[in-house]
């Protein structure tokens, strides 16, 4: 392998890791809902893309700097998240694990159909920020748009961790996740915390959706299924219910994916991501951070 090959390999891994921040955010969304409710919300990635579309609609009506698109997408994501909670979870029997799985698959298809009908299935351009900025670091070039995305992703994760570990709402959320009966006895309203979890993950998802749109440059309804798969893979590799796990697994999958795209081309890329998942399922089925068991 020549010097240039090594540089190119490292370059594609670095790009992948930067893009992986979006996978981390999606993984956090899946994992947080699972942690609190022990349910998978399959409509999450579709809702995130939907929120990015919604931010475009708002931006076409109101003139605002492009940076607001991330805020708008987050806001739209929060609203969509709450709607999904009310429609797919609030009044659906929780005892049957398949019930909410089916209702969220329904929401996924519904969101996809709405997007397809509204856009006649044609991809819509999405504004990228700092796409003209390129930083040269030695032999490497770092894309400005990817670095901005990465920074925004890290900021979102930091704010989320502060919310979960430094606020009263965070204590209540973790209490419901760890011991719902006791949380109830402490006077914490479980439906309220569940609803808020959907709003919070919705905001994170909306930001992730906008970041994906900005990185690829277009939004398309075809994004939602692959992103659902990626989000679930990240969640499993990270360890179901673990937020640090989702963050690390997101970056790992991003880097891994780009590495194999570089070596084997885009057609074989996802094959290797699945192989990575397979490896984890066989050798470390609990994920990177499987939740530690308590004493009782």
């Amino acid at each position: 392998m020549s010097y240039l090959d090594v540089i190119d390999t490292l370059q594609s891994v670095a790009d992948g890791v930067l893009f992986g921040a979006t996978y981390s955010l999606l993984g956090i969304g899946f994992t947080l809902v699972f942690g609190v409710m022990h349910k998978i919300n399959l409509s999450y990635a579709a809702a995130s893309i939907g929120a990015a579309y919604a931010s475009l609609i708002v931006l076409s009506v109101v003139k605002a700097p492009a940076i607001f698109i991330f805020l708008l997408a987050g806001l739209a994501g929060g609203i969509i998240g709450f709607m999904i909670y009310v429609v797919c979870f609030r009044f659906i029997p929780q005892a049957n694990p398949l019930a909410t799985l089916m209702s969220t698959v329904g929401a996924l298809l519904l969101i996809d159909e709405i997007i397809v009908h509204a856009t006649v299935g044609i991809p819509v351009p999405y504004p990228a920020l700092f796409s003209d900025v390129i930083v040269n670091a030695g032999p490497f070039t770092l894309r400005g748009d990817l670095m901005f995305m990465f920074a925004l992703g890290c900021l979102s994760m930091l704010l989320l961790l502060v919310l979960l570990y430094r606020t009263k709402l965070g204590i209540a959320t973790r209490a419901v996740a760890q011991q719902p009966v006791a949380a109830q006895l402490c006077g914490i309203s479980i439906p309220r915390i569940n609803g808020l979890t959907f709003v919070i993950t919705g905001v994170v998802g909306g930001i992730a959706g906008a970041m994906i749109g900005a990185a690829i440059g277009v939004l398309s309804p075809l994004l939602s299924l692959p992103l659902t798969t990626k989000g679930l893979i990240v969640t499993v590799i990270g360890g179901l219910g673990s937020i640090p796990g989702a963050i690390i697994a997101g970056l790992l999958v991003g880097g891994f994916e780009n590495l194999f795209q570089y070596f084997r081309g885009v057609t074989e890329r996802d094959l290797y991501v699945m192989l990575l998942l397979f490896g984890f399922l066989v050798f470390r089925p609990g994920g990177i951070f499987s939740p530690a068991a308590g004493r009782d």
Partner: protein
Amino acid sequence: MEAMLEIADVVTAYGKIEALKGVSLSAAKGRITCLLGPNGAGKTTLMMSIAGALKPRQGSIRLEGSELVGLSPARIVGNGVALVPENRLVFPQMSVRENLLAGAYQRNDSGEVTADIERMYARFPRLKERREQLAGTLSGGEQQMLAVARALMSRPRLLLMDEPSLGLAPIVVKEIFGIIAELNREGVTIFLVEQNAHLALQVAHHFYLMEQGRVTFSGNPGELAEDEVIKRAYLGTRRSAG
């Protein structure tokens, strides 16, 4: 004696099976009332019904005259009832301090909450030593103390305790019962479910026996010979159907 808690004809069912078949009892204000009975008598079901985690099918549960049936568990905590649940149920991945903060979830006086946490540390020095440790790593006795402290953080008028001695070493059980008596001296009304009839009869002012979803005896300690209480509390008098 003024009643803190009055329970009348409460029926709670799991599906078609009635675990409580019309329970009536009361707990006097400022006293320790104890409920004894064998496994499966419905003691925990009654506790969960008072706390609102289970919904009674009929009957009334009144706290100083105001009805609790139909309120959400959160509203019942707001009304001044706290339950120390069976098996403690601490939040295992949260620190001792965070567990106490969770207990004070409904309070908005953060300065007073901090002062109350210090008071809990003074009462339970072991919790102070372990305040930043995850609750899941504590011993059973420490977890029980944490569960009691967590319940006290809501400043309850009525403290419900479901088998605080369960699975603990005798010396720790003694400590827990010392704390129960101490809390009561400070004015907290306590309604206690216990399997350890011997200890329960030492602290209780009044006690009830419950068998198969019904109250079968009500009296003061001493009214019934202790060995008779123990026999009925552990074995029950009726032959079970199964």
